[in-house]
């Protein structure tokens, strides 16, 4: 293969893409979108900002002191004298929770948002103070009561503290690969179809080996995808350099998935370019890559719902869906080294076969104009 010719085809793809405003708009949007996601947690307000509690009537159970001692939230305490004060304060948004204490009757809580974390917090404190008051009436000291409550409050530990981060990493990597592959596969097929319909490929094939033309186009389009990826990753990298941390499992997922990412993209783009050469008209490019899109969508769905099952393990060896499933399995730490190695070998072998067969089909199909060709006839007929 002529590396110089391949390099020139890549150079043209990248340079012409750089001239298009649409590409710069896409890169800018990707960068800004990623920057917004990175900055969102520190910039966006906490949606559950409820902190104001109004206590109505008489606080005989030491609720005020108990709420003042709460450390989970910085509470603002108000008092009211009338039964309606609670409802009014909530309606006028002066308070988020109203606690109405009437003698020994069961306390009443009026709340602005039932789902707010403030509600169970205040509810727990109220219950604790009432029980403590009853125990005090029975002669049990406050210290004993406080100790009993402390021992009764179970310590909560996550079974797998990294699981959430790992799943986020898996979702992120798989989603990026899926979106990038769908967009670039369609793009490369369309570009080849255009070159075929306007006969540019005929001029080029007189100077450039078909393999160089095919690979140059695939790598060139991949470079544009890589630029998009870099635009999206830059805010994350900058955050890391500024002392931020990657979500748990993200680093391992990225490193472990790199091969499936690159090989998967190569496989789909090679097939997209090959199928693009079969079209009779440019408008058929979308239809001709539909089977690839179906594989991609199927692989993505299986990755989301069944990556950690035996079915997912089997699909790790199917090259069309392995690029979606294996990164997910790596992220959530299922599967074995042997499985990963086997999957990688099958995938790399598939890329090699796709390159060889794709180049042969491309060479035969790119100059056969007039009608849409089938893969079978291009594989079975001579030049």
């Amino acid at each position, binding site marked *: 293969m002529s590396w110089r010719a391949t390099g*020139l085809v890549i150079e043209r793809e990248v340079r*012409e893409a750089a001239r298009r405003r649409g590409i710069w708009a896409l890169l800018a949007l990707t960068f800004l979108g990623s920057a917004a996601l990175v900055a969102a947690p520190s910039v966006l307000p906490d949606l559950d900002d409820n902190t104001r509690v109004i206590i109505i009537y008489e606080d005989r159970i030491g609720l005020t002191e108990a709420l003042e001692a709460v450390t989970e939230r910085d509470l603002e305490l108000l008092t009211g004298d009338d039964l309606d004060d609670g409802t009014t304060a909530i309606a006028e948004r002066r308070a988020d929770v109203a606690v109405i204490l009437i003698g020994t009757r069961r306390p009443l809580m009026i709340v602005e948002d039932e789902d707010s974390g403030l509600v169970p917090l205040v509810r727990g404190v109220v219950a604790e103070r009432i029980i403590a008051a009853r125990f005090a009436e029975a002669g049990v000291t406050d210290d004993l009561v406080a100790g009993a409550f402390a021992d009764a409050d179970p310590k909560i530990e996550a079974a797998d503290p990294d699981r959430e981060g790992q799943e986020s990493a898996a979702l992120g990597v798989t989603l990026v690969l899926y979106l990038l592959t769908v967009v670039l596969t369609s793009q490369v097929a369309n570009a080849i179809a255009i070159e075929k319909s*306007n006969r*540019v490929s*005929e001029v080029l094939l007189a100077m450039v080996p078909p393999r160089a033309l095919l690979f140059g186009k695939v790598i060139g389009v991949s470079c544009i995808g890589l630029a998009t990826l870099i635009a999206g990753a830059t805010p994350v990298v900058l955050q890391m350099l500024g002392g931020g941390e990657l979500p748990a499992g993200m680093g391992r997922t990225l490193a472990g998935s790199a091969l499936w990412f690159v090989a998967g993209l190569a496989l789909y783009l090679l097939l997209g370019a090959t199928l693009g050469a079969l079209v009779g008209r440019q408008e058929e490019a979308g239809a001709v890559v539909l089977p690839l899109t179906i594989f991609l969508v199927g692989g993505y769905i299986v990755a989301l719902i069944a990556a950690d099952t035996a079915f997912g393990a089997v699909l790790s060896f199917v090259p069309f869906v392995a690029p979606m499933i294996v990164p997910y399995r790596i992220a959530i730490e299922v599967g074995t080294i042997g499985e990963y190695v086997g999957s990688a070998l099958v995938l790399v072998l598939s890329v090699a076969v796709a390159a060889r067969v794709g180049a042969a089909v491309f060479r035969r199909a790119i100059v056969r104009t007039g009608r849409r060709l089938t893969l079978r006839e291009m594989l079975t007929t001579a030049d």
Partner: protein
Amino acid sequence: MLSTMTTALEVRGVVHAYDGRRVLDDVDLDVPAGQVVGLLGPNGAGKTTLMRIVFGVLTPQAGEVRWAGRTATATDRRRWGYMPQERGLYREMRTLDHLVWLARLAGVDRTEARRRGMELLARLDIADRARDPIRELSGGLAQRVQLAAAMVHGPELLVLDEPFAGLDPGAIRFLTDVIREHVAAGGHLVFSSHQLDLVEDLCERIVMLDRGRVVLEGSLRELRRQSAHRYLRVDVDVDASWLDGEAVRAVNRDADGSRLLLAAGVDAGAVLDAIRARVGVNDFGVEAPRLSEMFLAASGGSA
């Protein structure tokens, strides 16, 4: 047939079929330096397929393409220039950038490619459009760029597929001049056309194809000289009944007058006298057959 010493491009015994249908059948083609060679024939004769085979875009089922006495290689082909029938350019690329890129693909370094590109655009009178995207050029100007694309790397052989299709008379004259300049400078050139009468003044050698077979080939001057057919052209409408049916085998009338196919050995002066006995003639001439007439004779009137 020319010897290898004088013929740079030789196509020998090429056979090619699509879907079992033979589109080229044992075709030979010689393109010597310094001569304009026309590959002629009706649509579907196999001209474009032959050109694709010359450039290695298609691999023939039999036969070979030779250059300078040996089988042509990819390196040889990179030194040739090809202009396809339909415009093979990236429409969004800037004119000069496109030429520079194609020259670099052919092995020319960037600086030299740029110099050649500008020089060629100036020669083709489109230097002021160097930075314009090709999509903004008119059909005629895009055709010039297409020609420049075929010539920018200084090819030893130029292969032009239907270069005159769709051009206005001014553009045809311009392209004809460029072709003659290339050949006069010692270059090799072959072009295809189905518009036989349009290109007969340009061709020095011809290869005529019909349904994939060579039906006529050689020096156009020689072929005309050797032809048994002679035509008498007069600027009046001639009625066949005025003439001896044995002496005049056909009378064709058009807007310019009449063209009479004379039987072999007939005295054109006697036929002219017979016409002048009926009507006054201001302009006349005895002519060799036109390309289209030679084609019809060679193909048995199949086209």
